[in-house]
């Protein structure tokens, strides 16, 4: 059991800075997900923790021990790779026993551990097969099995589910979360899929261009994104953004987006004061825009009209793609909506859930 501390961790490939002086503390038994678009440095960070990539600057501590110059085999970690990396010339049993054999465990204990792990993952009947005789999902299980037999202090996952089909991915997602509860071990999980990040992590770390953008519990990040990037990255469909100016009228504040104006809730007036008559970016999640009167709903609402460009019925909900002036945006509405394509409708914005960002720094206000 161990915590992992990254201190000013930096990785440069020649002139390219892949990871830029990041600081992060992962607590013992925590499930942390590093998420971000490709090239954001998340995999490089994980590989540095694993010891597969040399550190340019900074320190990594695992369980309080500085491991900068410790070989991967001596870090007491296990890693599951995107392509599973099963040894093709060994049976499933030998794949799982390999690490224990190298560590000179007695045969009886190797056997016991392999069979126990196989049982947990439901792959007992596959132990004599070679990797190429397995399906994608089975290979995935074997890869996880190979990691858990060693009983490591930290598990590292590098996009382990991205080679699986959508249905299997959802199932494995659940299983990995269960496994985490069962093993109670520190896990660091890298993915580009924000849904995986939201559903699996105790905390998620959003990265971009080698920098950490925000760290927090999934809902905390979803409800209070720290900048435009995080707001747009987390959540599907992404948050709608509108460029506008903050203007005072009578005793209230409005966001003027040229083709329409929305009233800022009065309790936020003080918070936004500094930005009056300045350019801002107004953000609103699709589920906070509705096409029926918000009567009976809590919160402060304002409305405008918009034209329905596209209507996507998804069964449990309907996505409306709307346009108003130069703005286009998405609303997630009730499946029994009366709105039709090309129709001009009235849409209501839940202003209590509004987000406002500095147009220059892109940081939340």
């Amino acid at each position, binding site marked *: 059991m161990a915590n992992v501390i990254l201190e000013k961790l930096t990785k440069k490939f020649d002139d390219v800075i892949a990871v830029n002086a990041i600081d992060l503390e992962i607590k013992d038994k925590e499930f942390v997900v590093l998420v971000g678009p490709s090239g954001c440095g998340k995999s490089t960070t994980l590989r540095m923790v*694993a*010891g597969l990539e040399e550190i340019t600057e900074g320190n990594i501590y695992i369980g309080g021990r500085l491991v900068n110059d410790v070989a991967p085999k001596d870090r007491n970690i296990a890693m599951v790779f995107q392509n599973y990396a099963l040894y093709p010339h060994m049976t499933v049993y030998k794949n799982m026993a390999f690490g224990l054999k190298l560590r000179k465990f007695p045969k009886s204990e190797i056997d016991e551990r392999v069979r126990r792990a196989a049982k947990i993952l439901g792959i007992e009947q596959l132990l004599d097969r070679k990797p190429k005789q397995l399906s994608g999902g089975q290979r995935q299980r074997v890869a996880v099995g190979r990691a858990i037999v060693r009983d490591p202090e930290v598990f590292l996952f590098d996009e382990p589910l991205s080679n699986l089909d959508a249905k299997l991915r959802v199932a494995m997602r659940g299983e990995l979360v269960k496994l985490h509860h069962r093993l109670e071990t520190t896990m660091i999980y890298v993915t580009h899929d924000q849904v995986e990040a939201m559903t699996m992590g105790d905390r998620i770390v959003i990265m971009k261009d080698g920098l950490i953008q925000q760290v927090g519990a999934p809902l905390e990040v979803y409800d209070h994104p720290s900048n435009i990037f995080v707001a747009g990255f987390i959540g599907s469909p992404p948050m709608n953004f509108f460029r506008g100016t903050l203007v005072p009228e009578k005793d209230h504040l409005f966001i003027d987006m040229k083709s329409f104006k929305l009233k800022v809730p009065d309790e936020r007036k003080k918070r936004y004061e500094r930005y009056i008559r300045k350019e801002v970016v107004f953000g609103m999640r699709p589920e906070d825009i509705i096409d029926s009167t918000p009567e009976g709903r809590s919160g402060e609402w304002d409305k405008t009209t918009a034209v329905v460009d596209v209507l996507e019925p998804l069964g449990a909900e309907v996505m409306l793609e709307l346009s108003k002036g130069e703005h286009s945006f998405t609303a997630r509405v009730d499946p029994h909506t009366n709105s039709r394509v090309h129709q001009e409708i009235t849409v209501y914005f839940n202003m209590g859930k509004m987000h406002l960002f500095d147009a220059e720094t892109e940081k939340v206000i």
Partner: protein
Amino acid sequence: MAAVGETFTKKLFSFYIPLFFFTILMLFPFYWMFITSIKPNRELYNVKSLPFWVFNPTLEHWKYLFKNTLFTRWALNTLFISIVSTAISLISGIMAGYALSRLRFKGASALGIAIFITYLVPPTLLFIPLAEVVHNFNLLDTPWALILTYPTFLIPFCTWLLSGYFKTIPKELEECARIDGATRLQAMIWIILPLATPGILSAGMFAFTLSWNEFIYALVFLSSPTQKTIPVGVVSELIKGDVFFWGSLMAGALFGSIPVALIYSFFVEHYVTGLTGAVKG
């Protein structure tokens, strides 16, 4: 029916007929060596007799080859030299190929190209300086003269072929092994080498064939009849002045090519995957 006939005709012209001619072309030298080696001299030197057939087969040339020349000795020399120089070259080639394909160091790709270029320098240029070197080591007219010179062209060849093969093996396998508890060397021995078997076999077979058939260094560095290899021995002892002992020459060539042909036929499958490179995780 028409469709079946069509595909057969198409296959006949695009596959069977070319294959037939190709097979004839490839096997004809062996056939020629064989019938020449069992032809009595009166048929061999009779311009009126049909050259493609033998009417009174005889083993006299074979007997001459094995009794009156040191052919068995040459074969043993060739075998010893080929095996040792192949082993040296394979071991060095594996190490160098692995380093070039896996380790990140400055000038790795330049070094790779430089190694390959040394392979392109022709032996006809190198044998004079190498003779000087071999002479300085007092190794002239010993098998070691060849065992030490053959790797000069075998190592670059093995290195090049193997580094290409190692690159086809996903590096995650090795990384995973290193996390599992292996050192780099252990990961190489337990994971990479078993997976590279086809590549290693191909490189080994090529190296073996090249040293088995090598002529110029063997001709220059070996002089006493007991030290010679098959290619040199057959040519120097069975051509006396301008007299060619055609029957025994061909018998020598035939027996000289049998071991190589056997090796290839045993490992043909590995050999093909070795050159096409196919490791799937």
